[in-house]
């Protein structure tokens, strides 16, 4: 297979990973602040359903307004679910796992119950838009700049989150809150309030991820339209070491694995084709298990020390120290 064949497949993989990018960035933000929002599966599904229902209902008022309303609705739904997570875990101090897990199942059921009348009907989709100058860049143009606005927005979101995390004071404090909330409190931050805010932002982004599915990459709505992606998003955040750039790359890796699965099916006939269908999910999880176990750190320790620091920054697997823990202010 030569480059001319690989590029378009990579391009598809990158573009179609866009919803995951939004979801994973959202989860990364929440987890970096110390809140694990396990409801991703339900949030994405409910976001997808809501956005499609809104956009479809408003279709008459023009594609762009209906799409905007759809995305906004999904963001609100995502933030609303995140608000329950925040209320239940930050204020009422229940287990983040319990609340998130219940919401994951509840959101999924609600989406299919409420979305019943919108199943498999055509609706508005995000129109494609090639960026005039950039689309003709050799290789990169094909790879990155021949899709639609949402894709470019996701690039912007990755950059934005990265800049926010590593270049702004507020972002530095966000990371600090997830590591040592007590120390952050000592430096004058209202930890609980900030966690509320970041959980809501993260939830809104996961809602948007749902909309990105139903209004763009898996246009339309059907029962359990995006099932599985929420759990994968949670895994990818871990796999991406809570670093927005690496998380985004992991999303693309997942997209590429999916594409490879369909390509490899006919190339390796010895393996039942269905194995390839589930392979991306399984591979992602296995990679996660391998990279997050203790022995990776042991191997890292064997590396010469300057190399060690770069390497560990790249494949660091330590979660934010306060992730999932209740913050008790004295």
């Amino acid at each position: 297979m030569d480059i001319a064949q690989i590029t378009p497949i990579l391009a598809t993989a990158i573009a179609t990973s866009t919803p995951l990018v939004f979801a994973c960035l959202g989860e990364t933000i929440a987890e970096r602040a110390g809140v694990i929002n396990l409801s991703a599966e339900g949030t994405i599904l409910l976001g997808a359903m809501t956005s499609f229902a809104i956009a479809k209902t408003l279709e008459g008022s023009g594609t762009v307004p209906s799409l905007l309303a759809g995305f906004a609705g999904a963001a609100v739904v995502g933030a609303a679910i995140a608000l329950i997570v925040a209320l239940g875990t930050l204020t009422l101090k229940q287990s983040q796992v319990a609340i998130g897990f219940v919401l994951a199942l509840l959101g999924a059921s609600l989406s299919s119950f409420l979305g019943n009348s919108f199943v498999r009907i055509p609706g508005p989709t995000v129109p494609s838009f090639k960026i005039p100058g950039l689309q003709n860049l050799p290789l990169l143009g094909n790879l990155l700049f021949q899709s639609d606005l949402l894709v470019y927005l996701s690039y912007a979101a990755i950059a934005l989150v990265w800049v926010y995390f590593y270049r702004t004071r507020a972002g530095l404090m966000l990371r600090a809150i997830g590591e040592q909330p007590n120390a952050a409190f000592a430096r004058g931050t209202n930890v609980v309030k900030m966690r509320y805010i970041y959980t809501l932002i993260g939830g809104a982004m996961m809602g948007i991820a749902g909309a990105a599915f139903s209004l763009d990459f898996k246009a339309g709505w059907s029962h359990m339209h995006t099932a599985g992606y929420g759990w994968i998003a949670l895994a990818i955040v871990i796999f991406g070491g809570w670093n927005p750039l690496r998380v985004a790359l992991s999303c693309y890796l997942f997209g590429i694995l999916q594409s490879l699965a369909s390509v490899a099916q006919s190339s390796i006939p010895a393996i039942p084709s269905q194995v390839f269908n589930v392979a991306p999910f399984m591979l992602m999880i296995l990679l996660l298990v391998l990279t997050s176990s203790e022995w990776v750190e042991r191997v890292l320790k064997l590396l010469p020390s300057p190399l060690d620091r770069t390497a560990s920054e790249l494949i660091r697997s330590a979660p934010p120290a306060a992730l999932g823990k209740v913050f008790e202010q004295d």
Partner: protein
Amino acid sequence: MKVELKDISKRFGNVHANDRVSLTVEAGTIHGLLGENGAGKSTLVKVLSGFISRDSGAVLLDGKSVEIKTPADAIARKIGMLHQDPLDFPPLSVLDNFIVGKTGTGLIDRQRSLRQLQQLSTHFNFNLNHYETVANLTVGERQQLEILRLLSLGVSTLILDEPTTGISASQKTALFKAMKQLASEGKSIIFVSHKLEDVEELCDRVTVLRHGKVRGRAEIPCPDAVLIDLMFGRELAPPLKPQTRQSEPALQLEKIRVDTDRLTLRLGDLTAYKGEVIGLAGLEGSGQQQLLLMCAGLLRASTGQIRVNGVEMTHESYSKYLDRGIGYLPADRLKDGLVSGLSIQDHVALRTPSRSLFVDWKETLKQTVQAIATFNIRGKPNTLVERLSGGNQQRTQLALLPVPLNLLLMEHPTRGLDIESVLWVWQQLIARCQTGTTILFMSSDLDEIMRYSDRVIVFSGGQASHPIAVSDLTADRLGQMIGGRLSDTLEPSVIS
């Protein structure tokens, strides 16, 4: 800035942590805050830094009354606090730690912050690698970083809570030099400590707290004896304990060294005899706890050997220690000793050796009722342990000790107990000693140490003194040793 605390009171439950405490710190001076563990020093400074809200009293800055409810308020009032355990962000770099919480434009100007950090480092002659991760720094370096950060915020009042535990001698020298420099620049500094040496070296004035009250104030220099008298109050209590020590050795330690994150305990050789009670005195965090944990089998010694009743135990598992009749009573009863959510009876069942699969609830109930009677626990068999008072929790812990008990290791056996309970507990313990149990206990209550020990070991900064018979101890000598002036130590020659 002149800092005045007026009649500060703060209660935690029944404990009066601060009882109308007043303190005045003139600008440009270093004010020592001296006292034993639990004297109320930390509470007082935490009120000033916004971590604890006071019940009553007033805080005045340059004569003006201010309201400080959160650390944010304190920062706004230019009050900064250096905590005993560094409150920083280990996974972040030195530079990022320096920046967290600083206000400014949205984007971080790392170059500017770096210049500022470098400038300050040079000014105080600190040597920090700005890109190193804080987790890889020593405690002393983390303190230095924190001080620089506080200074960069422009604080004019600096509180240091026990800053000299866990740092090296050279770091201490650097720290003190910096403090003096800051004072000379007009900042007011509150230095919380229980080390006489440090206070005498650094402070201009000192206030001594004891049991939540101000016991006295002094100008430095001031004779040790005066400070010790203020800290510990009065003549030491006379020994109360009958002779229970037998001639057979029970616990034998050889060339022990224990390494932990904060501290290296160098112990050398030690022998405790059957029926003997050894009190471990010293400021908290000087190594007593490490010794107890190691003898309990919960902490591994890096080098050396441990024998109990002649049996080699050095590499044995914790369960072997339990089997040998070695008991451990932690200070934090609900965190380390008892399981909240479980009743007294559940605990009795857990500690009853049984070969059977099923719990004989009838039998354990009988045992529990008996234990409750014997140990005078105010609770029912099905009372959850977290609902018991501290004293009754302690009685429960005592009831759960293995029988026969060869070696008992205790942290603050009577902390938080009323006098009656204290007497009762020790009565029980001495009865055990008479049957040959050896006890090692640490306590911040010097009276307790004096009353109930046969011999005392004083700890300071990971060094331990030779065991001293209580009859040979005077308040002055004990105070000096606790304050860090051990004349000779257990370890034969300091390995550097």
